[in-house]
């Protein structure tokens, strides 16, 4: 039988590699296409910049890494064996300068004797700054490809899926399991990382009937099963959750619908792993040269792609499987000069080959490859103790098989050592996972000990880790396998040790004088193959997984082009500047309007809870640290809430709307936290209470109208008397129901109008017309900040910063004397009453403007004794004022201090005062 040869005229796809144009046959990997075009040198290694070619035909490829794609789709470190050529593919070699053939970095190889594993721990001493100079060059030399510099133009999807059985691996075992489960009525998902199903059947098609793969796939689909190709199971997490990464287009390829990749999160009832195994290379000197290839990869290139990677081949093996490669090479017309079988006695397969006329050497172990960057030219081996050499252009190696146990181990499974296969296979697992096929039963192999020069025998190809490095780590006391891995960087390259780990373990076990399972094993962690960061982020990338929450009144604000301010997930108007105004001048104008006439602002984002039921007051007296029960119907009051440790964490107002109905407001930033707190107290601590606590934050929009003319404005709007300060009434505006609460944050006579958010735009428009008619204006958060600081009102996140108690905040008198509220016990901690607490103070500038956030010092260069939590200017008179926290601040009114901000080069002399700067008697918000 002759293998099909790749027909040149079938090569219809154009691609380039390092700028040179080539053609590929549809369905070819980049590696196959490069081999078909005679390209042997594809990349450079990480440390010594050694020339490298194509070693494998799969995801385990350590050498043939290229950058594909352009612009924001550029993907560095793409395995040439794992990208299918598409028309227009642009590939570039990496980690070389100026070119792949003449790489300046290869001088590192010349110094390799002085650069053993961990060399960097032993040199480059001196100051940290000096290390940074060395490091600058090391970093430039390190790394592989270049990252894009632009944003990604494509989308990534996250998709959930649930199934009874997830089968990983579309080879014969996986297909058979999938069809059985699907036809038994199970919800089935079958995934295959390749573009086509079949796995080993693609390489060795003679083992099953032609058409079996397609027929089986059709049966699976007919039974309702889902088959995902070009999809890799990359992570096995808790409770049988498996993440799949699906390539919707090839790396670097433009997706017509903009979808580049899809991440599937599959929650499976059971998982069947049919992941097969990965062939191992053999350690011998210069075993990294282009033209040295895994035996099964050779077969794949011949039988799948019709590409014959060499004309004069030698095969080195310790198992029977590699004899199939000899057959495939011969069938493809290549010359197989010999099979070097490490086993001392001939297996049946070896004897059969010998009988068929093949040259087979038993007890034969390779020692060194000859050749350079353009490929191997020969091999030297030990044959039954004698050295022999051959001239060849291809060395096919098979050092045995490593079952792909990654997912099994990620699932928390144990591994068992199988001596005859020299391999770890899946053992038990606490999750619902089983392994079938080649991954569970790897082929028998002979034991093969490297006899070559350790310094040039590579085991981790990409990171240039040799047997000598393993030996050195052992000699220096790095004896645990984890120390070995970390000291030598073995297994830390982009192939994650898929090829080299077993060779290293074998060497370590030899050093320790123990068996391989006793030497230990490193843990496989997700992902099985590297996963694009864009895919991990998914559709959330542009907004960081945090959508902006939009105000009900957004369109009305936006029409006025305000300056926006982020506040948690919200964006709120900070000021509404008029022509020529800055933030500061606009905010001051707005604040002055509130002080002198009237202003209105959107307070819809405040947390709001409607508390209803016979036990509503009792419930509120648990949440709030102030008393609530005595509140008359239609009245409201300021309140604050404590954590269980007694420190204040939020504040707001509580209103008795009806006999058994209350409205509680609290801060915007703390809204979610408060919602959880209220639910915890209601559902967990107090399930017996007859109360309903409903989060109505989004149901009610809120409009605050404040200023000396606020009363006229609101009276006009509701057509009835306004409530007096800290009272609430139900009313209507233009026939729409509203609650009007008379509360003042600004220090002026003020009202908050609450209405259904869906009706808010028309109510806002009515209010705005009325406010403008009274000569007022809209105001934003910045003006609100000016007003509240001047009035000495607290803000959550500023003064209420999670570190102060109600004592520190001057709220002691408001505490519910009866106790019983959350935090009452925490208030009993002795240090909260001790000296040296930071306490709320006011600060008045004597000289200069007080920088917000500045430190409070008693003298220049003294240690800080507090800080400025919020700074503003007196709205009408001018003059810099602030609120702050100061050690023992209550006793220090009148003291002069410095408010210093060295990072901004600002400072002010200040006087410590009472934290109220405006209308101390509170006359302005009464009628």
């Amino acid at each position, binding site marked *: 039988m002759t293998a099909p040869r790749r027909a040149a005229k079938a090569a219809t796809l154009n691609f380039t590699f390092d700028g040179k144009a080539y053609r590929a046959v549809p369905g070819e990997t980049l590696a196959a296409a490069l081999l078909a075009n005679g390209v042997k040198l594809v990349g450079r290694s990480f440390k010594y910049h050694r020339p490298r070619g194509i070693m494998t035909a799969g995801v385990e490829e350590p050498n043939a890494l290229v950058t594909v794609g352009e612009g924001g789709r550029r993907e560095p470190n793409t395995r040439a064996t794992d990208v299918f050529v598409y028309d227009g593919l642009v590939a570039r070699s990496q980690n070389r300068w100026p070119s792949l053939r003449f790489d300046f970095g290869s001088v590192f190889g010349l110094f390799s004797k002085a650069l053993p594993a961990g060399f960097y721990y032993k040199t480059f001493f001196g100051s940290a700054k000096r290390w940074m100079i060395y490091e600058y060059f090391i970093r430039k030399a390190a790394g592989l490809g270049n990252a894009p510099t632009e944003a990604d133009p494509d989308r990534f999807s996250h998709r959930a899926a649930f199934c009874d059985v997830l089968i990983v691996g579309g080879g014969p075992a996986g297909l058979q399991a999938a069809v059985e489960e699907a036809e038994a009525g199970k919800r089935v998902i079958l995934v295959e990382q390749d573009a086509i199903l079949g796995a080993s059947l693609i390489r060795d098609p003679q083992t099953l009937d032609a058409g079996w793969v397609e027929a089986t796939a059709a049966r699976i689909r007919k039974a309702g099963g889902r088959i995902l190709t070009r999809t890799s199971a990359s992570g096995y*997490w*808790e409770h049988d959750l498996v993440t799949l990464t699906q390539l919707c287009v090839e790396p670097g390829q433009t997706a017509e619908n903009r979808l580049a990749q899809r991440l599937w999160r599959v929650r499976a009832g059971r998982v069947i792993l049919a992941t097969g195994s990965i062939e191992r290379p053999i350690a011998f000197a210069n075993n990294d040269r282009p033209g040295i290839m895994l035996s099964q990869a050779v077969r794949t290139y011949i039988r799948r792609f019709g590409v014959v990677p060499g004309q004069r081949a030698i095969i080195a093996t310790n198992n029977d499987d590699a004899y199939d490669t000899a057959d495939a090479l011969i069938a493809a017309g290549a010359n197989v000069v010999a099979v070097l079988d490490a086993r001392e006695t001939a297996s049946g397969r070896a004897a059969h080959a010998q009988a068929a006329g093949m040259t087979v050497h038993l007890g034969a172990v390779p020692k060194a490859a000859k050749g350079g960057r353009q490929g191997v030219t020969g091999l030297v081996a030990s044959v039954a103790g004698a050295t022999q050499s051959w001239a060849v252009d291809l060395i096919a190696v098979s050092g045995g098989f490593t079952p792909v146990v990654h997912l099994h181990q990620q699932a928390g499974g144990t591994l068992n050592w199988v001596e005859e296969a020299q391999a770890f296979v899946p053992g038990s697992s606490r999750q619902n996972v089983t392994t079938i096929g080649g991954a569970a039963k790897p082929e028998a192999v002979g034991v093969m000990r490297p006899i070559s020069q350790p310094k040039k025998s590579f085991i981790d190809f990409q990171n240039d880790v040799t047997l000598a490095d393993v030996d050195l780590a052992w000699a220096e006391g790095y004896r645990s396998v984890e120390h070995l891995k970390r000291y030598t960087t073995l297994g830390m390259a982009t192939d994650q040790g898929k090829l080299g780990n077993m060779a290293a373990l074998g060497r370590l076990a030899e050093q320790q004088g123990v068996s391989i399972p006793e030497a230990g094993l490193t843990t496989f962690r997700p992902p099985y193959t590297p996963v694009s960061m864009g895919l991990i982020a998914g559709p959330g990338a542009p907004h960081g997984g945090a959508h902006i929450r939009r105000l009900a009144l957004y369109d009305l604000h936006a029409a006025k082009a305000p300056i926006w301010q982020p506040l948690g997930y919200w964006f709120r108007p900070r000021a509404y500047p008029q022509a020529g105004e800055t933030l500061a001048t606009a905010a001051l104008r707005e604040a002055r309007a509130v002080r002198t006439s009237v202003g209105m602002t959107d307070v819809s984002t405040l947390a709001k809870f409607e508390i209803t039921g016979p036990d509503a007051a009792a419930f509120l007296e648990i949440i709030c640290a102030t008393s609530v029960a005595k509140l008359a119907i239609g009245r409201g009051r300021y309140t604050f809430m404590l954590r269980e440790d007694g420190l204040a964490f939020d504040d707001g107002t509580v209103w008795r709307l009806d006999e058994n109905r209350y409205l509680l407001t609290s801060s915007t930033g703390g809204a979610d936290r408060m919602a959880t707190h209220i639910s915890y107290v209601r559902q967990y601590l107090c399930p017996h209470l007859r109360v309903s606590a409903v989060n109505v934050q989004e149901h009610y929009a809120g409009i605050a109208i404040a200023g000396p003319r606020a009363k006229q404005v609101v009276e006009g709007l509701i057509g009835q008397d306004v409530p007096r300060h800290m009272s609430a009434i139900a009313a209507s505006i233009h026939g729409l129901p509203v609650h009007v609460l008379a509360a003042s944050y600004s220090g002026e006579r003020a009202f908050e109008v609450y209405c259904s958010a869906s009706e808010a735009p028309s109510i806002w428009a009515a209010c705005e017309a009325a406010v403008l008619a009274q000569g007022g204006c809209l105001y934003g958060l910045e003006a609100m900040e000016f007003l509240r600081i001047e009035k000495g009102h607290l803000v959550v996140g500023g003064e209420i910063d999670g570190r102060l108690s109600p004592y520190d905040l001057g709220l002691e008198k408001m505490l519910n004397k009866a106790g019983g509220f959350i935090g009452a016990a925490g208030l009993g901690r002795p240090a909260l009453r001790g000296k040296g607490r930071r306490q709320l103070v006011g600060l008045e500038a004597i000289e200069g403007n007080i920088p917000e956030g500045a430190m409070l010092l008693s003298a220049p260069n003294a240690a800080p004794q507090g800080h400025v939590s919020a700074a503003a200017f007196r709205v009408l008179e001018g003059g810099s004022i602030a609120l702050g926290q100061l050690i023992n601040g209550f006793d220090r009114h009148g003291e002069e201090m410095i408010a210093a901000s060295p990072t901004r080069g600002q400072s002010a002399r200040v006087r410590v005062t009472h934290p109220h700067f405006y209308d101390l008697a509170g006359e302005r918000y009464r009628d």
Partner: protein
Amino acid sequence: MMQIACPHCGSRAQQEFMYERTVDSVVPLDAPTDKAMAALFTRTNPRGPDDEIWRHTYGCRAWMVVTRHRVTHEITAVRAVGPEVLP
């Protein structure tokens, strides 16, 4: 990422849930300072199973006690808490 059997909704993804605290760190409303602070500020923190309070925050919003192994994350029991409810 776990799957938690909500007593009200059935098996649901962990993203819908929020962890609150362990059952032994619940501070009773009437606890004196020393007992309250001991509950709040110390944990058994076992390398094994513990009773934890979780909330199905983005599902049915109910609270539950989840008995969960801290190393394997195996969940052996989930118990509903809260007011009496209809089936």
